[in-house]
C-alpha cells in the first residue's frame, strides 16, 4: 500500500510539474473558459436573452452554471491528451517496464484532472461573483457543485484516456474531441434552458448528461436548497450510472493497452 501511494504521488507530481513548466498554456487553460464564455458571451447576451425564458435575474447568473459544467466537460475530454503524448513518444512504455501497479498511471491522471478542474470551477465562481453572481446556497452549495463536477469529470476523463489508448494518431484524437465538445454544449441547457429550445433540440438535450449536471448546479447558484435538492439527488443517480458505464468500457481498453 505504501508502494502504491509512492507511485501515485510521484506520477501525479509529474503532471503538476509539467503544468507549472508550461506557464503560458496554464494561464490559457485557466483563463479561456471564463474569458470566452462567462465574460464575453455572458455580457454579450445580457440584453438579447429573455428573462422570461432564462428565469434568472440576468444572463450572466444564468450562464454561470453552464460555464462551470462546460469547464468540467472540456477538461475531462482533454484529460487523456498527456497520456496520448506519453504513448507516442515512448514514455508510457518506459513506465510500463517498471514494477508499478498499472492502475497508478490512470489514477494519477484522475487525481490531477479533478484537482485542476475543481480549482478552475472555483476561479469561475469567483469571477462570476465579481459580476454580481452570489451562489444562493453558500459554501455548502459550492462544495456540492464541486462534487457534481467531479462525478461528471471522472466518466469524461475515463472516456478520454480510453480514447488516447485506442486512437492511431493524435490527429484522430483531436478530431473526435472537436466533434464532441461543441455539440455537447449546444445540445445541453448550458446556454438556453430546455424550455426555451426548439422541441427537437430540447428532446436531444434531455439525453445529455451535461444537462442533468447543469440543471442541478443552476438552482444551487440561483434559487436555494429547496429548489436544488431534487435535482442534486437526480444528478447523483444519473452520474453514477454514467460513470459506471464509462469506467467499465475504459477499463477494458486500459487492460488491453497496458497488460
Amino acid at each position: 500500500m505504501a508502494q502504491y501511494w509512492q507511485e501515485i504521488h510521484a506520477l501525479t507530481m509529474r503532471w503538476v510539474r509539467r503544468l507549472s513548466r508550461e506557464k503560458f498554456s496554464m494561464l490559457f487553460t485557466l483563463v479561456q473558459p471564463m474569458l470566452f464564455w462567462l465574460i464575453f458571451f455572458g455580457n454579450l447576451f445580457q440584453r438579447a436573452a429573455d428573462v422570461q425564458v432564462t428565469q434568472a435575474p440576468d444572463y450572466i447568473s444564468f450562464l454561470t452554471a453552464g460555464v462551470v459544467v462546460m469547464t468540467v466537460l472540456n477538461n475531462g475530454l482533454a484529460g487523456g491528451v498527456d497520456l496520448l503524448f506519453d504513448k507516442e513518444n515512448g514514455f508510457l512504455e518506459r513506465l510500463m517496464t517498471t514494477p508499478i501497479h498499472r492502475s497508478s498511471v490512470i489514477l494519477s491522471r484522475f487525481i490531477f484532472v479533478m484537482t485542476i478542474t475543481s480549482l478552475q470551477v472555483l476561479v469561475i465562481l469567483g469571477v462570476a461573483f465579481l459580476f454580481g453572481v452570489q451562489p444562493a446556497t453558500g459554501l455548502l452549495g459550492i462544495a456540492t457543485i464541486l462534487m457534481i463536477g467531479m462525478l461528471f469529470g471522472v466518466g469524461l476523463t475515463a472516456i478520454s484516456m480510453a480514447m488516447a489508448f485506442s486512437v492511431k494518431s493524435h490527429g484522430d484524437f483531436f478530431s473526435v474531441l472537436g466533434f464532441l465538445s461543441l455539440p455537447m454544449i449546444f445540445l445541453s441547457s448550458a446556454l438556453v434552458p430546455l424550455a426555451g429550445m426548439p422541441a427537437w433540440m430540447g428532446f436531444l438535450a434531455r439525453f445529455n448528461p451535461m444537462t442533468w449536471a447543469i440543471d442541478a448546479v443552476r438552482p444551487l447558484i440561483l434559487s436555494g436548497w429547496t429548489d436544488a435538492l431534487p435535482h442534486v439527488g437526480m444528478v447523483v443517480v444519473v452520474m453514477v450510472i454514467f460513470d459506471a458505464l464509462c469506467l467499465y468500457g475504459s477499463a477494458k481498453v486500459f487492460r488491453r493497452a497496458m497488460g
Partner: protein
Amino acid sequence: MDRAIAIQVSHLTKTFDGHTAVSDLSFQVYSGEVFGLLGPNGAGKSTTLRTLITLLTPTSGTASVLGHDTVREADVVRQLIGYVPQERAIDRFLTGREHLELLGALYHLPKAEATKRIAELLKLVELEEPADRPAKTYSGGMKRKLDIACGLLPDPKILFLDEPTLGLDVQSRLRIWDYMRMLKARGMTIVMTTNYLDEADQLCDRLAIIDKGAIKALGSPTELKIGLGGDIVSLTLKDQTKIPILVSALTGQPAMRAVKATPTGLDIRVDSPEKALPAILESANRLDCQLEFIEYHRPRLDDVFIAHTGRSMTESVQDIQTG
C-alpha cells in the same frame, strides 16, 4: 564450462493481426555477456526485445528472465531489468534529475537511497552540470545518456537497450560504447538490438542475426565469420555489363566457394587465395573483363549477413531509411 543462463527463449512466436513478426525463435543469453540481436528494421528484433521486457505477450512459446516467466511473473521480471528504449522516451518538461527521481519512486526506492544512486548515475553519464535543466534543452547525445541513466537506476541484473546509438553523432556513439564496455566489465548482462554491423562487431560477445522473424545465425562475431569459411575476394569491373559473364565463368570452379554479383563487380568467397587468385585473373583475362580494383579481405560481419539472408545489411537499412 557451463555458464549460468540469464535468459531462455523457447519457440517464441508473435503475430500482430495475422502478420507474423517473429516465428519459433529459440535462444539463450548467458550471465555476464553482451548479447546482440542484429538485423534490418522490421526483422523482429524489437518484438523479441519487447517480449523479454514484459511489454508484449507471446502468441505462443515462452520467454524467461533469470528463471521468471515474462508473462506469469511479469512483476518479478520488471524488478530485475532496466530498459533503454529506442525512441528518446524523455519528458521534455522535466529535468534530468526529475526523470531519475520519478523512476526512483516507481521502483520504490527509499528517498535516501534514490538520492545517492541518482548522484552516482548523473556523474557516470556526465550529466551533473545540466541535471537541473529541463530535458528540452538537451542535445540528442545528452538525451541518450539520460536514457541510459534511467535504465540503470533500478541497478538491474540485465540491461536491455533498443538501438542504443541510432541517430547519434560519432562522438556520442563512442561514448555510449564506452559505458557499455564498462557495464560489462562490472558483470552486467546486456541485451541489445542494433542494425549497425560495426556496433555488433565491437560490443557483442554473441549475436543472433535475425531476418524476417527468424534467427539465421547465432554465435560470437568471430565464430560467425570463421563459420563462413574462406576469405573474400572483391572485384570491381571497368565494364559492369561483363559482370554476369564472369559470374557464370567462375561459378563452379574448384577454388571458388561462392560467387555473387554486386552492383560494381563480384564478391567471391574462396578457400585459399593462392589457388583462387590466378584462376580468377585467368578467367577475367580470357573474357576480356578489365579489372579496376581488386580487394582481398577476411570475412566481415556484412559478409556473414549476406551469406545468411541473401542481401546486404547496409542495403536493407538504406531501403528503410530512404523509403
